[in-house]
């Protein structure tokens, strides 16, 4: 399926570099792996994601189970041993004696969960509206694109803040805000590539076969609009993680009972000035590593998938 998509997408443009691989997918992957930084980014991201998924089973404590916390261990610097269990706190503890490594594992889960769920919903809504707009054109198109233009003329953070100020804190509400902020980017991306594709002969051919609109839109048109969508999605996922962290840092994002990385950083912020840097710095490093890794992958994907740069 993916091979097919990329095969039709690659027809018009010459390959990035001739390699022995035959299918366009293999060619794109080969081109991607030529860049050392992008591969490092991908490896780092996979490691971080794996840590977020299996974290709760490998870290020493559940940081939100009060029975496992010992106030005696509060504010320990990295590498200290626990007074109660004798275990080592590799990244130190916060005021309540919470192991920062465990807190980061749980925080990472929430950050990535919010980002990926909102990504999925925003893509579904954005792509559907974008394809519909370009396929039907006319009034539907101008209505949808007016909304997109209007929304994109305001900064994402402002729109998200408005929503959260009205709705209150909560993981589900942050996801909703991110979906509303992000769908417009996908709609615009898909529309701009679909509008070129709609004029091509294979769409006319599909129309002549009297296929249903839905089938033409989602089985014929959409697969040919995927490459730019992948690039925008990698940029947007980094943006989503960053925006969620910012909102939580400002105290309007996730609730205190389910802290993401942004909220962990905010909690440690007060101790930063008094020298207990680890409570804030380590969640920050986890956040930054995630975002930079995704951006490195995205940068390379943009070069590999951009037909203008292919020579």
């Amino acid at each position, binding site marked *: 399926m993916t091979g097919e998509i990329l095969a039709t997408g690659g027809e018009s443009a010459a390959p990035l570099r001739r390699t022995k691989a035959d299918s366009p997918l293999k060619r794109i992957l080969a081109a991607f792996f030529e860049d050392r930084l992008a591969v490092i980014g991908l490896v780092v991201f996979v490691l971080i994601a794996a840590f977020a998924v299996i974290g709760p089973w490998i870290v020493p404590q559940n940081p939100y189970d009060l029975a496992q916390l010992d106030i005696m261990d509060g504010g320990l610097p990295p590498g200290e041993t626990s007074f109660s269990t004798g275990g080592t706190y590799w990244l130190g503890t916060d005021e309540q004696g919470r192991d920062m490594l465990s807190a980061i594992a749980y925080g990472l889960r929430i950050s990535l969960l919010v980002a990926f769920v909102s990504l999925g919903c925003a893509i579904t809504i954005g792509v559907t509206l974008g394809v519909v707009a370009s396929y039907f054109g006319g009034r539907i198109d101008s209505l949808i694109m007016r909304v997109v233009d209007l929304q994109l*003329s305001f900064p994402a953070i402002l729109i998200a803040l408005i929503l959260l100020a009205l709705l209150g804190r909560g993981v589900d509400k942050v996801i909703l805000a991110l979906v509303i902020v992000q769908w417009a980017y996908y709609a615009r991306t898909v529309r701009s590539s679909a509008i070129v594709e709609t004029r091509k002969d294979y769409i006319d051919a599909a129309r002549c076969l009297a296929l249903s609109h839905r089938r033409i839109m989602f089985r014929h048109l959409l697969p040919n609009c995927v490459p730019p969508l992948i690039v925008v999605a990698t940029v947007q996922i980094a943006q989503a993680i960053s925006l969620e962290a910012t909102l939580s840092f400002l105290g309007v994002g996730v609730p205190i009972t389910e802290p993401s990385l942004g909220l962990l950083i905010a909690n440690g912020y007060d101790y*930063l000035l008094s020298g207990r840097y680890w409570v*804030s710095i380590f969640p*920050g490093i986890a956040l930054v590593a995630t975002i930079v890794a995704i951006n490195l992958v995205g940068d390379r994907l943009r070069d590999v998938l951009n037909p203008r740069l292919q020579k």
Partner: protein
Amino acid sequence: MIVYLMRRIGQSLVAIMVMATLVFLGVYAIGNPVDVLINPEATQSEIAATIARLGLDKPLWQQFLIFVKSALQGDLGNSFVYGRPAVDIILERFPATMELALVALTLSVVIGVPLGVYAGLKPESIGGRSVMAGSILGFSLPNFWQGMLLILIFAVLLGWLPAGGRGETVQVLGMRVSFLTWDGLQHLLLPALNLALFKMSLVIRLARANTREVVTQDYVKFARAKGLSTRRVVLVHVLKNIMIPVVTILGLELGSMVAFAIVTETVFAWPGMGKLLIDSIKLLDRPLIVAYLMLTVLIIVTINLVVDVLYSFLDPRIRLSEVKG
């Protein structure tokens, strides 16, 4: 030109109306407006009086007309916390935010353009590559995190600059500004740099891409062939031609700077509109939130309008294609 101007103003008015409607629906239609608009500590008779005054017993469309009418008169309700008109309180904080945004904008141009031109002239050199790597970091690191690192390095570890607040201010044209006193300038530097970093990365990338394009043009080759010094070619011929896109993009970005100032102001305890918004959200001071949103929407729409119109003066192709389209 007049057709274009009218069209553009019309679009801006529609944008403001749509946002006003959304804010109205958000406050009045989602949930009970009595809870939203009336101070939770008000007594029963106060509640009844406010309901009657705001017309909350009337149907929704009438309420909307009342909201629009009083908004047009500059009345967006009284703040719960301060007990004064919300618009006045925000306007008092407005100069601090604008000062921060304008200084940040200046910094991003003054630092960003030379770095971008340098990276564009020598894209393969170590310096050029590190400038680009730095700009990727400026893009990817969240704003609040950059601010915290600045505080950690310059205020906590080195102790060179204060970590927050606005410092000493002086009165200029009825507005209090920081940048004219030494103390104020010290307080301003870190937050302005924090707000500037993201835009600076943008300017670096724009300047670099445009420089690379411009240096291959015939007029630059001709200038070199005439025997002009490299310095003159870069400062006059190249710089002039890369400034148009840079200035346009930055004009449009000024609006988003006002919004991003929310983060910077919170990190640095800078007493501007953005910090006021976050404080109001935490204190559930809803009239202030509504007033902030409406004013910010107004500011952003106005900036976009002014930049678009100015740009169409500079580049006639824009307005011609708009009128045709």
